[in-house]
């Protein structure tokens, strides 16, 4: 059965051609991926990154924004590779929530 990413050939709606300048958070996720991936530490291969993205549920694959899918995939891969544990990630997410949202959102380059 094809995964949710296998959409070539589907007749979907019109293409939204508006330009989107990547946000600081999006650029930071991209940078982290580069640092982890083929041009960096080679923690995991690009194929592993794709498999993690393609393993998202069809709903999440359709609804998550592009870099949100990357961040989800990275969080799966760093656990698989034994770099972080699931509880380390969920504990940190809880403490960031508890602290409030004021400091959320990367300031790229700062």
């Amino acid at each position, binding site marked *: 059965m094809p995964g949710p990413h296998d959409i070539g050939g589907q007749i979907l709606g*019109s*293409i939204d*051609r508006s330009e989107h300048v990547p946000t600081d958070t999006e650029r930071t996720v991209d*940078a982290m991926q580069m640092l982890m991936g083929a041009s960096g530490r080679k923690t995991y291969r690009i194929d592993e990154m794709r498999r993690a993205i*393609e393993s998202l549920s069809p709903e999440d694959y359709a609804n998550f924004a592009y870099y949100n899918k990357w*961040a989800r995939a990275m969080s799966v891969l760093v656990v698989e590779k034994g770099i972080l544990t699931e509880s380390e990630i969920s504990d940190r997410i809880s403490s960031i929530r508890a602290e409030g949202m004021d400091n959320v*959102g990367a300031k790229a380059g700062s």
Partner: protein
Amino acid sequence: MTEEHDHSGNPPQPDEDRLAATEFEILERALRELLIEKGVFTADDIRIAVEAMDRKDPANGSKVVAHAWVDDAYRARLLDDSKAAIEELGIDVGPAPNLVVLENTATLQHVVVCTLCSCYPRTLLGMPPSWYKSREYRGRVVVEPRAVLREFGTELADDVEIKVVDSTADMRYLVLPARPDGTDGLSEAELADLVTRDSLIGVTQPNAPSGG
């Protein structure tokens, strides 16, 4: 609902888009902090990588095309061994093992897509535009390229063949558009200014020379 008028004791609820964005920002911050603490990379590494990303834009691709337009021998080398010819100009082609330049003519138009994800020659074109990564473009361009190109304002005559090429992590493509008419007197730099990002993906043609 403003904060003053909310007596429920709950913080004001962000709208759904904002909520999803915030979840993403929290996950990003959690991963960034933890990976820095584990010594996987430093905050400086991230800053340097972001700055390197910001420096990449379609100008590299335009430079390659303009050079191929003015130098027939270079064009032949570019079509024969694209990676080596691009490196000749001092441009880093990046980690993808292979990159192929495809030449458009009066009767052949190449269009690039990555149906499965978002593979893109970033070192030559910068970050991919959102539409390139969209489900609509990825799904449709392989079955109805003429209709898709029309949405980009590109009308091709019926006798123009369209070849859609599907990129992979190991194989990226760059389109060499046909040189526009009326550009005989232009310098290489002026020619490069006519080459747009979208024309290097194949969904549009280069700009026409102005005031010619």
